[in-house]
């Protein structure tokens, strides 16, 4: 483990870590952009890096971005990311009471501790899950990817049918290109460009980054107005006086992070509600309660790292951010599962993730108030810059100009889809998992000599199949209503 720490100081890893932290903080503060945007726009920058540098850079970006979302939530009542909505409940009332600095200190320290607990969960639970993945065959792997695909129903909760339609669209897009088993070119329109399938990086940049810039361009003026604050260190000390809230919120955040399809958008709310339920003074919640501010901030940073556990250990991304991480891993030649956790670079990666939390702690305590001023940049100046980064990012993937066109097409599709409330993460999950599901299915069928009963002979495959059915069933049917109807 110590060797891993020493390796972190070699090459440019620490420099990339710092760059990721600063970039993530800036993009986290800007409302409407968020961690998925940050990861998508920064992904092309990793092509020249080593795998460990790339993952440390993206990890630092992600952690810092999730934290950054809380700064504007506290100072301006404008959550930078959907994971910071619950932060506004008590963070902004503190600012109104003139305790903005203290609130920022609480947010920074809470996010730091939450993030560290998330990284520890990744370090200890990840290898266990990875080792378990060795014991499963192609039939179970197929069922596992099927469970991953069925998560689109969870991701699109509230509109399950649309979620499944978008998941289906993503799967169909994943079939474009050369078939992994038979080598047949499918839906390539006889073009060489499509033989390798839809290029993931231009696709992600278009869907999440440029489309977001198009949405931002419709809003006039700048994002917000900033104000002066002080007293950050006092707030940071307050967090350490409340170990119970800290541990409870971190557990909530980690468990929800491991559960695919949940993510920071849900965990910050759940953690807030749990803290309120156990609070001695629940009436103070919503009026500037320290526990009320701590709970979502601890949870969302714990969740952000914990979401990587199923992605790294099983290759099942629970959401868009984890999907981009998985994409980055594959681009750098890394395979998820036990092979990943037995790679000698993992200790360095874990240290990198820990240092990523330290970086935003320092940045947060020293620069939070100053960085918040970037919300004053007018949208008319910001959107062309995002457009430029998106174009160069897509081009730098393979130095192919056609990738830029593909990115623009997906940006247009993404914009129209968002405007019409179609859940984009479902489509990304479909694209990521399509080929995995198909290749595992065909390998299983080949091993069993064409017999499909293989999927229903092995106990784990059956359990996973039941889970898939349960996910789909509970997504379509309001279980609570059903129970109450029958209990009557």
């Amino acid at each position, binding site marked *: 483990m110590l060797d891993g720490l020493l390796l972190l100081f070699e090459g440019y890893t620490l420099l990339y870590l710092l760059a990721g932290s600063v970039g993530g903080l800036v993009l986290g503060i800007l409302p409407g952009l968020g961690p998925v945007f940050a990861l998508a726009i920064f992904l092309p920058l990793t092509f020249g890096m080593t795998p460990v540098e790339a993952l440390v850079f993206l990890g630092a970006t992600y952690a810092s971005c999730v934290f950054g979302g809380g700064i504007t939530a506290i100072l301006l009542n404008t959550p930078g990311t959907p994971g910071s909505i619950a932060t506004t409940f008590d963070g902004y009332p503190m600012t109104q009471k003139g305790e903005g600095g203290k609130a920022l200190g609480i947010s920074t320290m809470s996010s730091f501790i939450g993030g560290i607990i998330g990284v520890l969960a990744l370090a200890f639970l990840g290898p266990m899950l990875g080792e378990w993945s060795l014991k499963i065959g192609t039939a179970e792997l197929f069922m596992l990817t099927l469970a991953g695909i069925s998560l689109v129903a969870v991701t699109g909760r509230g509109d399950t049918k649309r979620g499944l*339609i978008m998941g*289906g669209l993503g799967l169909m897009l994943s*079939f474009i290109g050369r078939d992994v088993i038979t080598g047949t070119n499918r839906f390539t329109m006889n073009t060489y460009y499509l033989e390798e399938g839809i290029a993931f990086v231009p696709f992600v940049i278009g869907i999440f980054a440029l489309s977001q810039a198009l949405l931002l361009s419709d809003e006039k003026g700048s994002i917000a107005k900033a104000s002066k604050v002080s007293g950050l260190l006092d707030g940071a000390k307050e967090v350490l006086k409340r170990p119970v809230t800290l541990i409870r919120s971190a557990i909530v955040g980690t468990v929800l992070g491991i559960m695919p399809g949940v993510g920071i958008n849900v965990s910050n709310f759940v953690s807030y509600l749990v803290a309120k339920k156990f609070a001695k003074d629940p009436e103070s919640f919503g009026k500037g309660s320290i526990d009320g501010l701590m709970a979502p901030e601890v949870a969302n940073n714990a969740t952000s790292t914990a979401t990587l556990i199923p992605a790294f250990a099983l290759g099942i991304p629970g959401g868009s951010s984890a999907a981009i991480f998985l994409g980055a891993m594959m681009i750098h030649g890394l395979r998820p599962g036990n092979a990943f956790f037995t790679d000698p670079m993992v200790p360095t990666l874990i240290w990198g993730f820990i240092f990523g939390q330290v970086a935003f702690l320092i940045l947060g305590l020293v620069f939070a108030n100053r960085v918040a001023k970037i919300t004053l940049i007018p949208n008319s*100046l910001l959107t062309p810059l995002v457009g430029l980064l998106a174009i*160069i990012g897509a081009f730098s993937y393979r130095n192919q100009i056609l990738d830029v066109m593909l990115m623009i097409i997906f940006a247009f599709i993404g914009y*129209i889809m968002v405007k019409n409330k179609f859940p984009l993460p479902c489509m990304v999950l479909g694209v990521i998992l*399509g080929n995995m599901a198909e290749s595992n299915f065909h390998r299983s069928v080949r091993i069993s000599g064409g017999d499909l009963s293989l999927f229903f002979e092995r106990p784990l495959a059956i359990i996973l199949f039941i889970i898939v059915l349960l996910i789909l069933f509970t997504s379509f049917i309001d279980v609570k209503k059903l129970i109450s109807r029958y209990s009557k």
Partner: protein
Amino acid sequence: MMRIKSLAKVATKLLIDADTFLLYCIAVFSVVIFAFSYSFPQEAARFPQAVSVFTFFMIVLEFITRYKKKKKIEAEDIAETKEGKESKDQQLEKKEVGINWLLVLMLVIVYYLLLKPVGFYPVTIVYLLISPWLLGYRNKKVIILTAVIATITVWLIFGRFFYVPLPMGIFG
């Protein structure tokens, strides 16, 4: 100019309320995937066919749900209009529609088309000078400074640090 603006607004409105159109597009895409997969070997065709049928089925289900909802909303709408309230269509017409997104998209497409023949440096500088101005930003000093700094930063990071061969165009 006014005509272009009003045309853009109409196009935007159509696309923003393109819910049904998008579902039709995905349905057509499913049919195309299903039909084309017949020419593949059975192993390569199985998954695309299964997924396209499933997606098509979900779209049909979505239309059925929406039809039921529409009937319900129409009944409520008639009741509300009778009470003197605005109908949903009238409310939709009043909704303000921005066209800046279309402008940004056009600028990005023009940038893409000129990137290879003209080259990274001139196209980027011109793009960053024109775009904020067209989007309504008027501080010339800030625009020029941003254009120069952003071009140099992108060149340094991508071109020098990550060795991305940025298109040289007329300078090549």
